[in-house]
């Protein structure tokens, strides 16, 4: 009998798509790196420390959990990505034990305790971030201004979002968020001033409009805030990679952003003493961690629905909750809580989905589903 050596046997199929779960997860981490690099450039090398602490915590937590499960899972990248996302949500000068503990909690309790990758029902990174927010609200809000903007390291300053929120309705009722920032003494970079001036001269003036100062800083990331939320441009560039390479489904971020934008436009002006349909969509979408959460955490396949209809329900739910929490909740950062709440609803969405959208399956399944 002639046998070819070392042939693997088994059932069809015998060829596979090149993409593996590990390559998806490591790929997502790689897409975050430009944002991280920009953050470190803005805040200085010391800003890398919370991220390093967070990743170490996550890897340590995963190592322990994988030891308990007797299955080595460090290389699937999921712990690394969780650590990276937690670290990038932290203020630059935070005490290092906070990101470390948040990551250990995320990886070992939120993910590991439920059976590891694929079995958790809440996004571990977001759960870790929310955990840190609830336990150390002071430290988690001690934002520092970027080097390049403040000229001085360690000068503390509110995020534009928090700043606008705390000053709104007090003395500047009826004005735009950016106007509040300016009047409240928030500083803009020279870059913002010159680009805004140029844009106004070239595009907006002929149209009879004017772009206030501050938006360009929001867009490119010349502002205080966490490493991850710093540059909307880099996050959006990353989102293009994620969607075009089909690493995430576009339905989730699209429904989150559009729901949130429409609600902000319709009702976002009210807390500022303005009327309906006068909210500042651009400011709301660009500010805070809205974009990084919408594109990098909410579409996490493990904790989001897998059918298109389910994704839309999930995304609309997140967008609406994020709006409510940001404008009427206790913290300016509503989006993280919104996603965690909708994570809890995913099994229910999946169940409804089987009933409502898979008629074929439903017909033969009787009434139990």
């Amino acid at each position, binding site marked *: *009998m*002639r*046998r*070819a*050596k*070392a*042939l*693997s*046997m*088994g*059932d*069809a*199929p*015998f*060829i*596979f*798509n*090149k*993409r*593996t*779960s*590990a*390559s*998806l997860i490591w790929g997502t981490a790689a897409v975050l790196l430009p944002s991280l690099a920009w953050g470190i450039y803005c805040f200085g090398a010391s800003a890398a420390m919370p991220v390093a602490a967070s990743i170490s915590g996550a890897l340590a937590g995963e190592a322990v959990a994988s030891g308990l499960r007797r299955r080595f899972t460090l290389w*699937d990248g999921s712990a690394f990505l969780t650590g990276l996302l937690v670290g990038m949500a932290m203020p630059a000068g935070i005490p290092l034990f906070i990101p470390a503990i948040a990551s250990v909690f995320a990886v070992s309790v939120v993910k590991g305790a439920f059976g*590891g*990758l*694929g*079995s958790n029902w809440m996004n571990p990174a977001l759960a870790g971030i929310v955990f840190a927010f609830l336990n150390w609200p002071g430290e988690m809000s001690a934002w520092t201004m970027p080097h390049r903007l403040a000229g001085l390291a360690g000068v503390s300053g509110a995020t534009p979002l928090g700043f606008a929120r705390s000053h709104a309705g007090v003395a500047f009722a009826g004005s735009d968020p950016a106007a509040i920032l300016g009047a409240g003494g928030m500083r803009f970079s020279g870059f913002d001033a010159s680009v805004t001036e140029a844009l106004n001269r070239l595009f907006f003036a002929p149209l009879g409009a004017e772009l206030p100062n501050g938006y360009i800083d929001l867009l490119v990331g010349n502002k205080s805030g966490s490493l991850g939320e710093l540059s909307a441009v880099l996050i959006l560039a990353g989102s293009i990679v994620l969607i075009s390479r089909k690493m995430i*489904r576009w339905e989730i971020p699209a429904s989150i952003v559009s729901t949130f934008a429409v609600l902000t436009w319709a009702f976002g002006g009210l807390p500022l003493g303005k009327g309906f349909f006068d909210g500042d969509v651009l400011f709301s979408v660009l500010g805070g961690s809205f974009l990084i959460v919408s594109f990098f955490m909410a579409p996490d*396949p*493990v904790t989001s*629905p*897998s*059918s298109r209809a389910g994704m839309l329900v999930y995304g609309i739910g997140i967008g609406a909750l994020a709006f409510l929490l940001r404008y009427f909740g206790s913290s300016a950062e509503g989006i993280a809580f919104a996603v965690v709440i909708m994570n809890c609803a995913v*099994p229910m969405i*999946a*169940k409804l989905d*089987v009933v409502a959208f*898979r008629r*074929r*399956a439903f017909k*033969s*399944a*009787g009434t*139990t*589903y």
Partner: protein
Amino acid sequence: MRSSRTFRHGGIRIEAGLDWERRGPVQNAFLPNGAVILLKQHAGPQARCVVRRGEYVREGMVIGRADGPLSANVHSSIPGVVRDIRVAALPEGGHAEAVVVALEGSFDRLGRKGERYLWESMGRTEILTTLKDRGVVDTEAPGMPLFDLLGDRREVGLLVVNAVESEPYLRAETSLLEDKGAEVMEGLAILRDVLSPKRTVIAANRPLAPAWPGSSEEGTVEYVFLEARYPQDMPRQLLEAIDESRKRPESDAIILRPSTAFAVYEAIVLAKPMVERYVSVGGGAIKRPAVLKARIGTPIGDLIEECGGFRGPPARLVLRGTLRGESVHDLDTPITKITSAVIALDSNEIGSLSKTPCIRCGRCSEVCPECLDPDLLFRLIEHGLRGRAMELGLDECTVCGSCGYICPSRVPLVSAFSSEKAIAALSPPPIDAPARGESNR
């Protein structure tokens, strides 16, 4: 001629290995020194052996007689001496008897150009019994004997000659259509005579040359060009793409491969039993991929050698197709009437096989051409809830392998489905183990 059409739901696009340059017409493979002729190359029970060890057999002589319904005659593909009659493993699983014939003597029958039989005067029954005598089976797995497949079918709505090859490295059907167009068309004419279909369609995923012999018959036979998206060649997807109205029940159509039509031509017109077939030999580990006309019973190793041997160490040997076929490890595995391809994959083509936990990405339900949710079905099976899985469509799964191909976690979806379906086919509907709550997603 219509532009390329396809089916609606799901499916996968596989780029690698779908197309390769074919050099010249299909060559006859060398005759094997010893042919291992399995007595089960068809759907039903194995044929009854009618030769003894040491007996001289002529080429085309019956060595196995059909034994009951769905069984088919088996003929010796080469002249020689029966060296052994032994039990051999079937590539698709299970065992059957095999007759080992050592090449000897001369080709007294099939080597010569025979008289062309004028079949037009034959009756329907005569044609069918002749097909039965000559051991003609459908060349697509599981190899239904044509006598059984067509016996009780008259005036079918649609007859499809399915030359669509949407799995990588398959090329035998297209090559046959290209090289033996006139013969395939004549086989088709015989089939039309038997079935009197209302509509006859040739479906292919490569355009045929304008000089193709069948082109003149436009009017009675339609040509439809379909995308090579997988699984375009499976019955439901094929009919969906051909039949815009989508109202025809699958049972009103008969789908056959060009190689089946060619076997019908040879059996009726040339009075030749089914002892040869076209085989694609390909894959990343094969030096010179080719389509060969090989005798039934030729060891696959001989064909691989004829294609220049292995380019590098093969990681996997596959018969019939990379998505629906079987893996084998024995280079002496013989070609049967349904072995359309021999594929040797290298390790690069296989890629990572390590299983990781399901991340619920939903790609499996996205690509499922039957609109099922493979992830959900797999979980139900894992929890012993086969009955619920059946209710949710497991019985509609065609085991096409799309979900298994796309799964980034390499969850063994397809093996689970095929074994569950096999069990379900054997046993009455199971009583589910008590459900662990209603919360199984």
